[in-house]
Each structure stands twice: as C-alpha cells, then as structure tokens.
C-alpha cells in the first residue's frame, strides 16, 4: 500500500499509455477526468478525430486560462472544455451524436470509473442505487460503454479509501450494459478484458508499471488476474 502511494504512475502517464491504443484516422470519444488528458498525448503524424456527444466531431485543442479571450462559448466538448475549431470540424445535434455512438461508428470510448468487474462491467454513474434525486450523473456514459467498437476504462488502481477498483462483482450500479469493457488502464497496470463484448471471459494482466511485479499488482487487485505469458513493462 505504501509502495502504491510512492510508486504509482501519474494520470498523465495513464493518458499517454491510452493514446498509444489509437491508430491514424480513429474516431474517439473522451469522457471526463483522466480520459480528457489523452488528447494531449497523441503522437504527431497521427490524426484522431475527437467526438463529443454534445454534437461535435474533429475538434481541436482546449484553450488554456491565458487564452480565455479567444473562447467561443458555443464551441466546447462534452466535458464543457472550450476548444479550438479545427479545419474539417463538424457540428450536429445531440441525437446525431448519440446515433454515432449507438451505431458503432466511434472506434473507441474512454471512460473514468468507480469500479470495473472481472467480467468487464463498469460502474461510474452513482455509488448507490436508488440514487438521491440530486445525485444523477449519467450523462452519455451508458452509450459510451455500449456504442463504441472498443471501450477503454482509465482509472486509478485503488480508490480514495485504498480499495481495489477492479473487483470480482460490482457493488455499485452498472453503467451501460454487462461485459462491455475491453481494456483497463490504471496507474499500475494494463489489463485486457478477454473475450467478445457481452461474453467476457476474465482479466489478463498485460503490462505492469516499472518497478512492479505481477504478484504485487495482484495483491492490490480484488479480481483475479491471469498473467499474460508475454507480460511487459508499461509501454509508452
């Protein structure tokens, strides 16, 4: 546990690792939190078209505080970060944006989360159900899990109470539909959820953070991990 505090990777490193999952020309939706950082780490020469469920495709980089005067309040992504317009950018309505998700036109969705189960179930919209009426935080998360061809979850390995976020069974309400998560990238490991969507077979530990062994990662993980025969160090 102390080692986790001292030697876990940063959110930026998680984002950097996820950026490696994309290929030139991919259409990708980034959720709030760590996923939002991924846009900063796409290698030059690779064009990724970012999709925002508010109805925007192919937007540019986000404005910084110093650049606030250039913001157009009508141009933002789905995390309400104001972004630059980019040549070729398209805007459309909400239902079109959700059809792009639901119709599997988006190559990957990257989400944050509270828990992921060993069958690839994600919980990220509420910590309990029924939720209090002021605690509804679903947004586009359900469609982001089910729609895109690949569902990638970007999380810290442990939550604020130092409990494993990767669990055998969810204790929090499910997001989207069962068994849709394909890859989990944490501050300790890269874990594949093996098998086709809806028929997931379990977790395979593919990569561990520098200085960590598979056994140490398993010790901090509630769910059972199968260790890949070609286990690697986190590849950046």
């Amino acid at each position: 546990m102390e080692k986790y505090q001292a030697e876990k990777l940063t959110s930026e490193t998680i984002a950097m690792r996820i950026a490696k999952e994309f290929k030139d020309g991919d259409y990708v939706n980034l959720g709030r939190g760590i996923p939002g950082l991924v846009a900063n780490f796409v290698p030059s020469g690779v064009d990724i078209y970012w999709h925002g469920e508010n109805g925007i495709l192919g937007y540019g980089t986000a404005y910084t505080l110093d650049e606030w005067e250039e913001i157009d309040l009508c141009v933002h992504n789905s995390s309400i970060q104001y972004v630059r317009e980019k040549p070729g950018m398209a805007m459309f309505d909400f239902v079109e944006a959700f059809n792009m998700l639901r119709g599997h036109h988006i190559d990957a969705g990257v989400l944050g989360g509270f828990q992921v189960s060993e069958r690839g179930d994600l919980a990220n919209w509420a910590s309990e159900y029924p939720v209090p009426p002021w605690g509804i935080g679903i947004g586009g998360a359900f469609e982001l899990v089910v729609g895109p061809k690949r569902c990638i979850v970007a999380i810290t390995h442990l939550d604020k109470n130092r409990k494993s976020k990767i669990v055998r069974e969810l204790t929090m309400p499910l997001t989207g539909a069962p068994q849709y998560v394909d890859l989990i990238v944490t501050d300790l490991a890269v874990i594949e959820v093996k098998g086709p969507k809806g028929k997931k077979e379990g977790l395979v530990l593919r990569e561990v953070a520098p200085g960590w062994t598979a056994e140490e990662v398993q010790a901090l993980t509630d769910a059972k991990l199968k260790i890949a025969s070609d286990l690697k160090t986190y590849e950046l």
Partner: protein
Amino acid sequence: MKTKILNSFDEAVADVFDGAVIAFSTFGPASQAMNLWEALYKKDVKDLTLVGNMVMPIREGGILPTYGPTDCVLQPGKVKKIITGFTTGVYTRDGKETRNEEFETALKNIEVVPTTFGSICTRLEAAACGYGGILTPVGVGTFLEEQCEKFVIDGKEYLLEKPLVPDFGFVKAWKADKLGNLVYYRGQRLHNPLVARASRVTIAEVLEIVEPGEIDPDHVHTPHIYVDRVVKVPKGGMGSFEWNEVLKVISYGPGGFRRRLLEPVSGGMSKNE
C-alpha cells in the same frame, strides 16, 4: 399570411397549462432558451413535467441574471416531475456550490426519474417520428430495466424506449425566417432540433429574424413545419452573442467564477463518463 412571430416571451408561453410536459436543451449556456425560461418562471402554472438532458443546481450566468429549468424547480409546486440524465453539481460559484442545498430541498418534493442522455434522445425521436418505441441494447442489465420492457430479437436483448411527447418544446436558435425555418450557430444546436421535431408546440427564441429566402434552403437545420412560435431576443438580451461576450468575461476573465473549468483536468475519481 399566418404569422408565427410573436412579440413577447410571455405571450409565447401564455397557454402553458398546469401539468404540461416541457422539453428543452441544456449543456452550458449556448443551447438554452433562457428568455422562455424567464417567462415560464414568471408565469403562474403548476405541476409541470420537465424533460431535458440536464437540470443542474447552479445557474449559468454567475452574477448575470439567467434563467433555466432550475429556476422553475426552485419555485414550490411549479414542477411535479423531472426526467433527466444529470442533476449533480459540477460547477461552483465563488469557489463553492452555493445553490446546492436549496436545489436538493426542492428536489425532495419532485419525482425525479433518472435516465441516460441517449434514452431521452430515443424517446423524443420515437415521439417525433410517430414510432411505437425504439429497441436499444443500451441499459440492459441496468436500472433502466425498471423503466423499459425487455425484448429478445435474434437472440439479443433490447430495451423498449417508448415515445415521450412533450406538450411544449423550448428551443433556442441563431436565425429564423418568418416561416420558422431555423439555423443554429455551433453548439446552440444540441437538443434543439430534436425538441422541435418531438414537441406538440415548439417555441423558438432566436437572435435574428430574416425574410423567407434569406436562409439558403440547403442551410436550414430545422424546417419550419416543426416550429410554431418564434420570438426574437432583443439585442444584447440573455443568450445573445453580445451577452455571451459579457458572460465570458465574468466567467473566465480575471477572477472569473468558472475559471477552473479551463484548468487542466485533474486525475483521480471522475464523477461520470
């Protein structure tokens, strides 16, 4: 020629009745029909049902007067039911979530139905097209099964999203011609075209009104058949481009109450998505 152009927002919402279902768009300030919300806020009406992607505890404009669904939620008795995908406060004002307590108290007396953004789209789409419902795999195995019937088609499970027909749709657009053809500017579009298509009576607040023909037929986003009433926002009025520039300074200028939204996203627990 029968005119759809009305002179005041009060007139535009005059026939909103007790128990009416109202659909709308919210996602940041761009797409929200604030002037219609102000008129509804002032109107004596009760037991409304609000259908929209977000009902947020914090007002959009900081110290600028703004109106949205939340203002009506805070009026006792005005709103009976809310169908929405987002009620959590992610914004702060002056460093604290100033309206949360009042908002939470108000919600205790309202039936709040949690749903997903996509489900609202699907239900309004079904209403707009006259479908009996739309089958989607999204939500199978989740709490949505309590709200939707489940069907198996070719061995795969789907939920039936039934049509939801709003009595009134509040729409915000950039330009309208006198027939009611609408064009949106950038993120103003959002839920507005769907709200226009789905609602029995669609009321649009627009920043400009032009003659028929001035909007190129290829550029019409919402054809006028869907639009029943149009009211022009006065120059510099709530939600106008000039007003947006003022809001920008108040929100993101030095000492702005929204500046933290522009700071790099910090890691850790992400609330959703």
